[in-house]
């Protein structure tokens, strides 16, 4: 990371942090940077910033850096960090709030994750559950990784995990209603 001039941080940036905090229900001044969130994170190895560092960026008002980070998109939402935080900081909610903010701003630091998530939610919305073949097809087409995971297809077909028949749940509409409600409330 280049030298950061803290004096260049504008009030607008601090306000943006406050908005994210409000959305996540978190006051970032609560965090004393102990690192317990990062210590227990199963995805930390794949992240560009550790979860603690995302909070640190927000504390300093460096909101653009946080929004451009891949970390919130790699987060598995296992909630281990939030459950263990001694200061009650909801890190998982923060990851979601940062993702939503970067989507609102049209930033997609992790394009594939975004495509996958949209495909997944669309899948659930349509069939009430995730349909592996459709999910894979949709993701591969949209992401451009046409052949990704194709070698797994025969094995999955042999075990009945994918097939010509499209499975769905009994009350598809109820699930659809549920997903729509969540999306309308700002979910993604």
């Amino acid at each position, binding site marked *: *990371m*280049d*030298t*950061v*001039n*803290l*004096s260049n941080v504008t009030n607008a940036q601090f306000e943006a942090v406050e908005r994210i905090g409000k959305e996540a229900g978190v*006051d970032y*001044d*609560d965090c*004393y*940077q102990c690192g317990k969130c990062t210590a227990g994170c199963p995805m930390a190895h794949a992240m560009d910033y550790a979860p*603690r*560092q995302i909070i*640190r*960026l927000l*504390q*300093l008002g460096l909101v653009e850096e946080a929004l451009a980070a891949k970390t919130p998109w790699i987060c598995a939402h296992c909630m281990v960090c939030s459950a263990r935080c001694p200061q009650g900081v909801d890190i998982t909610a923060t990851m979601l709030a940062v993702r939503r903010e970067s989507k609102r701003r049209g930033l997609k630091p992790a394009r594939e994750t975004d495509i996958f998530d949209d495909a997944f939610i669309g899948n659930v919305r349509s069939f009430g559950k995730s349909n592996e073949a459709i999910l894979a097809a949709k993701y591969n087409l949209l992401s451009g990784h046409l052949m990704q995971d194709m070698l797994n297809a025969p094995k999955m077909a042999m075990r009945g995990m994918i097939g010509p028949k499209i499975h769905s749940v009994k009350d598809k509409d109820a699930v659809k209603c549920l997903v729509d409600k969540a999306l309308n409330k700002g979910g993604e």
Partner: protein
Amino acid sequence: MSRVGVFVCHCGSNIAGTVDVERVAEEAGKLPGVVLATTNKYMCSAPGQQAVKDAIVEHGLDRIVIASCSPRMHEATFRKMLAGTDINPYMLEIANVREQCSWVHKEKEVGTPKAVDLVKMAVAKVNYDAPLTTTTIPVNKRALIIGGGIAGMQAALDIADAGYPVTIVEKEPSLGGKMVMLDKTFPTMDCSACICTPKMTDVGAHPNITIKTLAEVESVGGYVGNFEVTIREKAKYVDYDSCTGCGLCETKCPQKVESEFDQGLAQRRAIYRPFAQAVPAKPSIDAAHCRKLVDGKCGVCEKLCPCGSIKFDDVDKVSTETYGAIIVATGYQLIDWTKIYGEYGGGRYKDVISGLQFERLVNASGPTEGHIQRPSDNTEPKTLVIIKCVGSRDPEKGKSYCSRACCMYSAKHAHQYLDKVKDGRCYVFYMDVRAAGKGYDEFYMNTQHDGARYVRGRVSKIYNQNGKLICQGEDTLLGSQVVVEADMVVVETAMVPADDANRIGSMLGITRDKDLWLSEAHPKLRPVETNSGGIYLAGTCQGPKDIPDSVAQASAAAMKVAILFSKDELESNAMIAHSTTSLCNGCGACVSICPYTAITLEEITVRENSRMVTRPVSKVNPGLCQGCGACTVACRPGAMDLRGFTDEQIMKEVAALCQW
């Protein structure tokens, strides 16, 4: 022949773990004079002590050796135990087989023979022990307190309330010390002056307390219960008996001087009270700056004074008085960062100020009436940078220790700044936040919620660019270099002992550590005593601490004085040096080597070779001698000897160790 009993302690597994105690007892039993050698699980416990007492009766012992922990730990315990038996309490030797043996070795094969040797030496020595007795010395029930800051005042009030007369010697013109310079106190944000000045008034008004300001202790003689102290009160050039403290003189004095109280941020006159609530509430003349005293022209104050109190012919008053106890409360000063931190401008930038200067700046009765303004152009700083650990935890440039109070007062400074400058930004560069104390961590967290942005890392450099103070640092939590363009920088500097502390320490025989803080007798169990009897420590002269700790230590020291004064007579130390007149040649080597000034040369007239001769011989003052033994080593004719550690005993120990 003596009848020695040897008792070897297991100390649970502390000793028995690395020393074969049974074998030590067995070997001890073979030594000359030993009639009983046994072991016990815990010698110092009640059953352990009883076993010794029983053995004394049963075996008719006349002296004992206890192989256990350091004599510093339990020698007094066993002496007390012997006081209830037929044996004199000084017919006892402790062989230290714990601290100096079992704790430093890992294998029994090494520990056991060493323990045997240590016991051998103790037995050799105990055979030459002689019964010793103590004498009593009278106690003069008046206390002297050096330093009139919060610690000195608290100690004075406590001793005075206990009914004993107290004298406070303060080198400044007023009581109050550093605390009265502070604006507010953490974590409750009490106004410092509001809680300090009533104490000053109480001290001033207490019938048992005498205050000597602009005074210092010149010399100290005597010993516990009977210190002879010479105090010099510098000339004030104002007669305090007739002065009413109206303050007219101060308003008309033409000579302006940088105010020490306002840390150079404001000016005072040559005739002045350092601040409005000063105690005593009367002015004094600063002789170095007074025009009348320097070149004989002026004397405005003398003409104006309605009481005729100005006395330009005033002289220093020197008095010698006797005190029973002394409390040292000389306090601290801040390290001069300008001399050691060139990277922070070394004092070149007016807007880089110390924490104490910030206290004056934010104080309602300070130079800016509490408005936070840059000293350079009186504008309000919109970005404040606070740098902690300037001079602290920096062995290369400053001090290796943590100054303890800075974490909290820098949080307080950040809080005060954000409270007064609503649109201001405050960055605190820190290495750690050490907020151990009641309500302290909560205060620090609240400061962060106030908007203070803590950046973990030291500032490496401050430089001026277009009127901004550019602070270069690293946020180690972010792992990135950061820069802040500050309008004002506060450096929270290390506490160091007051200028006078070293002189007073050497005068009173108090040891000092590598940083010249005065040393307590034991860091845990005797935190307010010194190694010199009757001399106690209070406040920051002993080491950096905050106000609550200073006050607590002051009250503790006062209690020690009250305990001392509750007795009419004191028991003197039995193990002291004494001189054999017939051997002494009066060379005086012992006099110059004694750290407690306990030895003097005295003329005696004796019959030698059939005629009367008058010659000087050394004489030990039993009240002052602490039994260190320096004189016995210095004495060439061998006249000086230490009771309980005679030259003969030490040679016997060496001989016992060297026997094959």
